[in-house]
């Protein structure tokens, strides 16, 4: 039986992140950290292998979307290592591993294969539209983890580092929307050259609008709602969750 590249990638990522989570849960912080780093670099190598094999960026379809989102989550997780308090960084690692494993679990419902090629994939705007949407999704999920973590810490303790974590979450939420808008901007150019108009009244347009409006909602919460940590973390998690739903289930 021939084993395809997606199956190898999927199995290896599952094993690495399962071991990382297990090590973390058993208090082996060093091992969890090391396995998380190994998972990220393996994912980076997988993305590189994908680009070499398919001669394009990860764009569309559950498998390559999962791969790119995990790559972003792993990378952003490493970037956020400098969180105040070692326990916070550790908790963020564990939640990142949980989210990655959930994503890998969702992938079992879809074919273990890269998306078929399409003649428009040679166009820059098409590439930017699909690829940046995946990067934005990874960034939104990372923001959701940070805000949830910050809100949880703030709700339970008077730890001043909570505000710092929440601020980081806000940074990544805004970065996510900047990336998403760049993707939509590219998509508008694609739409203009393909269909003669910068936007179309279609399901795709409505879904894109929902993501933007969800971020707008999170950024314009009235004071009464803003004070609630639960509301704030839900509001900041919705863009990432909606993007995932958009990619996998619609």
């Amino acid at each position, binding site marked *: 039986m021939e084993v395809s590249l997606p199956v190898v990638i999927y199995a290896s990522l599952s094993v690495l992140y399962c071991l990382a989570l297990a090590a973390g849960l058993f208090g082996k912080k060093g091992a969890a950290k090391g396995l998380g780093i190994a998972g990220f670099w393996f994912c980076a190598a997988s993305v590189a292998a994908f680009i070499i094999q398919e001669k394009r960026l990860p764009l569309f379809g559950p498998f390559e979307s999962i791969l790119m989102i995990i790559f972003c989550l792993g990378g952003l997780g490493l970037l956020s290592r400098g969180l105040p308090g070692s326990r916070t960084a550790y908790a963020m690692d564990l939640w990142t591993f949980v989210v990655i494993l959930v994503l890998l679990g969702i992938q079992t419902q879809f074919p273990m294969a890269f998306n078929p090629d399409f003649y428009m994939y040679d166009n820059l705007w098409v590439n930017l539209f699909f690829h940046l949407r995946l990067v934005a999704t990874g960034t939104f999920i990372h923001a959701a983890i940070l805000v949830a973590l910050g809100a949880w810490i703030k709700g339970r303790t008077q730890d001043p580092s909570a505000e710092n974590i929440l601020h980081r979450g806000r*940074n990544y939420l805004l970065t996510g929307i900047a990336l998403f808008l760049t993707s939509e901007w590219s998509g508008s150019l694609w739409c203009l050259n393909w269909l003669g108009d910068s936007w179309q009244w279609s399901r795709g347009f409505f879904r894109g609008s929902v993501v933007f*409006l969800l971020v707008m909602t999170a950024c314009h919460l009235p004071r009464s709602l803003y004070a609630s940590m639960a509301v*704030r973390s839900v509001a900041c998690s919705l863009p990432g969750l909606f993007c995932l739903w958009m990619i996998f289930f619609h």
Partner: protein
Amino acid sequence: MISFFSSTRLAFFTVVGMLVLMLSAIIMTSFTDLNTVFTTMNHTIILEWILDHGRTRPMVTAWLCGVCLLAAVLFINTAFCSITWQLKTALKTRTVRRWSFFIVHLFFLQVLACHGISLITGEKQENITLFPGQSHRFSDVEILVNEVSYEGDLKFLTMPLKESRSLMTRTGYDRSRNTARIDILREKYRVATGKIFMLSPLKYNTIRITLTGFKIGPGKDNTHIGVMLTLSRTWFTPYFFTSYALMILSLAVFIAITWNLKLQEELPESQPVFHPGNPS
């Protein structure tokens, strides 16, 4: 009155209202007949669509009016907030952060205005099928298809869309080899000419001729191939893309400036993390 129109509370409820309408549109598009109505909205300028179909399609028309109304409220809210609060604060504090925050909203207003303008101005005709030698009147010009060159597999044009998409790969379908030569005539004089192919339209002043597909004509030999075109005339497209790009750029600048900001120290009015704006 001014404080009401510039409040974050109004922005929040307007955005939530729009969110509900967009989510309802996603649900509506899962019904084939309603999805078809939304598709027809792309065939022309929205103002024309409302005048032609408004009475016969009440549900989608009501939805559209709701979106327009909320977008107008959001525009007014953003404009009021920007002028009465953001600009005032920027002038008072003179910090780059406040200015960049104001500028992000300014470009957002421009993008919103461009969306509004696109609903009521310009001209658009979709799904215009022309065979070589045929012409079509659009705006004040005549669009003439001089020549069609199709080198792709003919079965791509006859099989269902989903099936053909999976076969039209980068190696299996070269879009630059499947073209049409177009002439634009004004009072029988050729004012522009050019080759168009998928994703590469012909532009003449504010007119844009976009090739959206090929079509096999009547006859048994399948050699008579025509093109499907979208003809549009809009003057604001460059403004829209420039404003949109500048909005993203100003947002990126704002994020960079506030990345490591110790907001607690700078903003004693509280709620700084997600509220660099007006606390209502």
